[in-house]
């Protein structure tokens, strides 16, 4: 019985993999429904990856959009459909790293010229908290975490995030 269930389970996984490859192949032919399906499956993972690299919604949103535009535009060049997820994450990671460099240059501007960074940051900290004291405390803690993450070597952060994201999609 257990053997049968395991067999059934592995057969389901194989079917899912096959279905997934069919979606990619259809997207390679320019099928818009297949594009939407790929976006639906991967948008949250790509968002998490970019957010972990960038730390705010506005920059993450730009990277998510650009990632899918590049993926859809270049999908016909992907020879091995099994490598789709690694390819997708690598594009998202490269764009996030580039975006961070651009942002570092932009940060040279006065703080009031980049309000979206502050507002999204505050949105993240106040979402589930009503007590103003706790909001302040959380904000300080989050600020410290973000600063610590920003201070980490880029390569190290990229390796850990890629590992985490690949674990999410297993």
């Amino acid at each position, binding site marked *: 019985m257990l053997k049968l269930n395991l067999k059934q389970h592995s057969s389901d996984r194989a079917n899912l993999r096959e279905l997934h490859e069919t979606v990619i192949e259809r997207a390679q032919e320019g099928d818009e429904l297949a594009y939407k399906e790929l976006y*639906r499956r991967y948008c949250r993972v790509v968002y998490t990856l970019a957010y972990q690299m960038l730390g705010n919604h506005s920059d993450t949103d730009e990277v998510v959009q650009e990632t899918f535009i590049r993926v859809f535009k270049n999908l016909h060049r992907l020879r091995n459909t099994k490598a789709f997820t690694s390819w997708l994450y690598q594009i998202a990671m490269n764009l996030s790293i580039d975006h961070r460099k651009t942002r570092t240059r932009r940060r040279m501007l006065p703080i009031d010229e980049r309000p979206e960074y502050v507002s999204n940051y505050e949105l993240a900290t106040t979402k589930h908290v009503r007590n103003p004291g706790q909001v302040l405390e959380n904000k300080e803690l*989050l600020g410290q975490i973000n600063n610590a993450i920003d201070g980490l070597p880029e390569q190290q952060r990229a390796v850990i995030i890629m590992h985490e994201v690949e674990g999410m999609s297993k």
Partner: protein
Amino acid sequence: MDCQEIGKYLLDYLDNETSNSISQAVEEHLNLCNHCRSEWEAYKKTNMLIQLRNVPQPEDTYWNKAYAAIAEKLAARIVAMPIEHDAGIVDDFLHGHGQSTNWHKRISYLISVAATIIFIIAGYWMSNKIAEKPDEEYNTVIVVEPEWRGMPASQNLHTNFQPDADFSKFSGAAIGIISPVSQGLRVEAVLK
């Protein structure tokens, strides 16, 4: 296990996804190797900070709006892109494939066309030059001064010019054909 092999297992070890024997080997190596231990500490710290930073999920409406923006931008870029063909280098040159490869192809195409044109012009010019130039080794240039012929300088040599007779007299060896190159008071001809 050496440092390279341990490096392959560090991230799985971080997630407690290694077997008991591998975990034990990693722990033993980390106790002995300072380099791997510092790498491991760095991964642990990075992982902890990333886990601490909660990724706030955007509102449900965000995903559809983002997809609409992607579709719109994609359509705009596809319209702006030239039509693609797979019919070889000429179509690639005319219509373009990838941005960078397209420019490489165009430049190499233009260089090969220019090189062909230069080669044809140079070949044509050289062949004309060779045809015009007298063969110095076998031809003799004979210069006939008017006084040699005993004619006054004012006499019109041009009208009395008789190549065969005059040149055989002054050259001393009338071999072959004499072709006048210039005519006038100072006559030049080539004795072939």
